[in-house]
């Protein structure tokens, strides 16, 4: 569909509806980020930016992060604003289909996990678990553009 983008992860090629996800996030970005008062910590970028991860580990990190957002972020981001909630569930649905597609690559052993991606994902989990669940989930959602910028 329009705005789908083929992302290449080594031998793995996955079509992702980036434009749709971006448009959904842009619509709620200011609202979500305003709910995150902590400037001194980033779930995805502290202490090292995602951009520092080796390209060979990109597939594995992406696989981990799609699971992370599905299992630990979207479900904890209910707000009092139904418009925002609808946008969040639309983004979650797009992530669900991306996770399914990337999962197929993972099953076909085309999505190898090196030490670097394992360590980076541990950092992300540690950042997340260092906060209460709702704050950590809201901060992670507010960092969706960091993830999308890196994925692309």
């Amino acid at each position, binding site marked *: 569909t329009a705005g789908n983008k083929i992302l290449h992860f080594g031998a793995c090629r996955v079509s992702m509806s980036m434009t749709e996800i971006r448009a959904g996030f842009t619509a709620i970005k200011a609202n979500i980020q305003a709910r995150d008062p902590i400037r*001194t910590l980033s779930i995805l*970028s502290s202490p090292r930016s995602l951009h520092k991860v080796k390209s060979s580990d990109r597939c594995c990190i992406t696989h981990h992060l799609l699971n992370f957002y599905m299992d630990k972020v979207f479900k904890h981001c209910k707000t009092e604003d139904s418009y925002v909630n609808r946008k969040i569930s639309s983004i979650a649905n797009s992530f669900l289909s991306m996770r399914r597609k990337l999962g197929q690559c993972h099953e076909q052993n085309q999505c190898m996990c090196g030490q670097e991606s394992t360590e980076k994902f541990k950092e992300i989990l540690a950042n997340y678990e260092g906060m209460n669940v709702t704050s950590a989930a809201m901060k992670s959602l507010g960092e969706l553009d*960091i993830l*999308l*910028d890196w994925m692309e």
Partner: protein
Amino acid sequence: SGELYCSLLNPRHVRFESINMKNVLHWSAPEGTGNGVLYKVKYSVYGVGKWIRKPECRNINRTWCDLSSETSDYEEQYYASVKAFLNGMVSDWVETTRFNPLTDTKIEPPMLSISSTERSITIILTAPEKWKRSPEEESISLLQVYPGLHYNVSVLNKKTKKRWFFSISNHTLVVPWLEPGTAYCVSAQIRVTTPLLDSGFSKEHCIATLKDK
């Protein structure tokens, strides 16, 4: 002994205005204040602990501060903040929303160079460059920043008022099968699909095809 500060109303509309990643902080003076208000500015990298003062924007009376140099790494995101002073009165620090240079910049239209033969027009498009600190610094085209960048080109036959639209990703377009001795006007726009960023259309460039020999 501590100095006693009365409170001053806050600066308003504190925000980044960014064009081709030239990132300038702008704000409006506190309501009801005329001249004489001074400001200071600080900024921080999101996810990093400390606020950093901008010396060149300390005790200034203008309502903008160029933070392009401090925010030039577009893999990072930023906050900036402004405080106002007037006759011993002080405002609070007022912050921007989180600024992402990659998605929050505006892109200027492409530059056009056109030439013609009897029956065709050749259009060469150049994407703007990312802001740089000095002319000596290496230029980075926005094409390198946004790999998915492409161009929408409009070509108008001035006589028949017929218009064509082309969408191309390389930077040269040859429009064939045109009428000799006719004026055509060309305008172009930059389009980035993700993140979604569109420039406006450029000014029209008009040229006539050569007359038939």
